[in-house]
């Protein structure tokens, strides 16, 4: 899909929403809607409670120009299950005519990795035809930057503060993309807003498959990660160049690694861009130890995906 043509399409959030300047979730929501429109699909969206939901629908205003429902925090996937089932039966009965309607969930990491995990898993297992998009900003940003199971090792949040006894998050993050893979979906992917052609292609594919699909998109958060919003794409790109956020897709169980940096950048390059890691910036034995552990974790995860991809080469 030609990016310039995509940009001319008038779809996505209406201006006037209350997301923070430079919000990654807004970029993601806009691109998904543009791609769908370009493909001739009409979307119905279920949105889990979170930044995107709250900031785009402050009554009496809505930024959505397509049918949209918010039910609660942990049940966006179950909600879309109901919408999609209604579509199936009403279409069969001839009460709904269109066959270009597609269903999308937008959930943050809190609504997907944590409280909504069961609902998402259930909807995947039942094979509802919908696309689950995670905008993963790695913490509960909407309630004020509390840690989630997507918060990376070492990061500061308001519930993993930097103190004399404990410094930031002390455990590694959950890998939700691999949990989605375990459901043997027809399409699973991990993507980045800094790699636009890759992201667009993945959204297209995910909307086309017959069955549930899942895309986990790292959603840069200037407010919660403490960086200048103008650096959004620099930060997003660095996540990929350090292998912190590998770009890959799993098509009917087959792993494909979409990008491997020629020279993997050390994780310190990622850490030094964000204030949430500020306590790790000083070169001390304690910090060297934690950074080594972060590096080891990232390398292990990346190599694991690479090995899985090599099985299918």
């Amino acid at each position: 899909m030609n990016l310039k043509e995509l940009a001319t399409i008038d779809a996505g959030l209406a201006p006037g929403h209350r997301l923070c300047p430079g919000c990654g979730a807004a970029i993601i929501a806009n691109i998904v809607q543009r791609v769908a429109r370009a493909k001739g699909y009409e979307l119905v969206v279920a949105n889990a409670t979170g930044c995107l939901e709250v900031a785009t629908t402050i009554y009496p205003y809505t930024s959505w120009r397509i049918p949209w429902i918010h039910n609660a925090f942990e049940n966006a996937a179950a909600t879309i299950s109901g919408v999609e089932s209604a579509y199936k039966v009403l279409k069969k009965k001839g009460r709904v005519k269109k066959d270009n309607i597609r269903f999308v969930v937008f959930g943050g990491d809190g609504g997907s990795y944590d409280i909504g995990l069961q609902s998402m898993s259930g909807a995947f297992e039942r094979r509802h035809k919908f696309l689950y998009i995670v905008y993963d900003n790695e913490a509960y940003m909407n309630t004020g930057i509390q840690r989630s199971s997507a918060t990376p090792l070492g990061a500061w949040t308001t519930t993993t503060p930097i103190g004399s006894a404990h410094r930031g998050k002390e455990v590694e993050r959950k890998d939700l993309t691999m949990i989605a893979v375990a459901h043997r979906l027809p399409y699973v992917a991990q993507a980045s807003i800094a790699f636009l052609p890759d992201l667009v292609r993945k959204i297209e594919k995910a909307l086309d498959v017959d069955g549930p699909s899942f895309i986990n998109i790292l959603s840069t958060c200037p407010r919660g990660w403490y960086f200048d919003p103008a650096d959004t794409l620099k930060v997003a790109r660095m996540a990929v160049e350090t292998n912190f956020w590998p770009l890959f897709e799993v098509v009917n169980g087959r792993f494909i690694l979409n990008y491997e940096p020629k020279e993997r950048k050390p994780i310190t390059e990622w850490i030094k861009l964000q204030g949430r890691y500020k306590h790790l910036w000083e070169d001390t034995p304690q910090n060297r130890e934690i950074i080594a552990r972060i590096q080891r974790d990232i390398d292990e995860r990346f190599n694991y995906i690479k090995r899985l991809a090599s099985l299918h080469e």
Partner: protein
Amino acid sequence: MKQKRIGLTGAHAAALAMKQINPDVVAAYPITPQTPIMERFAEYVANGKVDTELIRVESEHSAMSACIGSSAAGARTMTATSANGLALMTEIVYIAPSYRLPIVMNLVNRALSGPINIHCDHSDAMLVRDSGWVMLFSENAQEVYDNNFIALRTAEDSRVLLPVMINQDGFITSHSLETLEVGEDKEMHEFVGEYNPRYSLLDTDNPHTLGPLDLYDYYFEHKRQQAEAMMHADRVIREYMKQYSELVNRPIDVVEPYRLDDAEFVYVAMNSTAGTLRVVVDMLRDKGVRAGLLKIRLYRPFPWRDVKSLLGDKHKIVVLDRALSPGATGGALYQDVRSSLYGLSTPIVAGYVYGLGGREFTEEQGLRIYEELRDLDDNEPFQRFMGVRE
């Protein structure tokens, strides 16, 4: 209308009603004692007797969540649950009426944990009595069956647009075989007709936003609308009860008096206990006691005017609650009845909690209540217990 007399359990009566309604979507999760409803309905689906899309969700929370999605998409939607299942979905049970979605749920009443118990009481229903659902109670399988059709019409009426819940006693009603009169599929379906939703998420040409962040400047107004819809439900449900009553040629009303006209000592109860109390009333009458019974069939909206006009001149009233409201001025039904009669000088209104966790309610207990209260002359809101070992 032609009807036939058949034997069914309360659960299977609910399933049959659901089959005849033929909803677009049913989302449910198994829980004792609701399971036979869903098992029977799944058989209808498996044999192509209904067109329903049955979503076998992974939890009750997802059951109600999927129902909301489905109903918001303009599909006629039903579900069923019990006790802890209802407790798990309670967050979403509140959302259904606030979004004005006409979902119909069969609730097979069972005690809430803990300790865990699978038998009947009404603690599950009382947990959600302020959620904004219209609530019907059913004495037996016949009422379960009838209430389903009345519930659906009421829920979908444009003056109401609220979800409706049909209660029946776990095991006592749900698993007991009784005879009841049922109509033909075609005629029963004709009674409910087709559902024409005012809004649908699938109407992509007229997109709307459902479930926005509603703060101090509008939330109250939306709640006020909801309260108004519940007031309309009081009138609308009577219309459908009347229509349905004429169709099946059986008297049906929001409350049901028994030997009440000249009664001085009146029992008030809901669900299957009303059947036991009818026998108790007869026994007392045989002894020369002017006893009577008022069965409450519609619990929300509470038919306070009916209660007031039927009980206002009685001497002594005893309200039986099958759920505990610890620390309150009596059980939930007791509070409603007592409030309905407030300001009237005559009645003494006493309350009993009975039958928790499936403890059997016997005629002997019913008679003992009369013995205990015969000489009572104060009107304190004192919570009494019947059927518990001292």
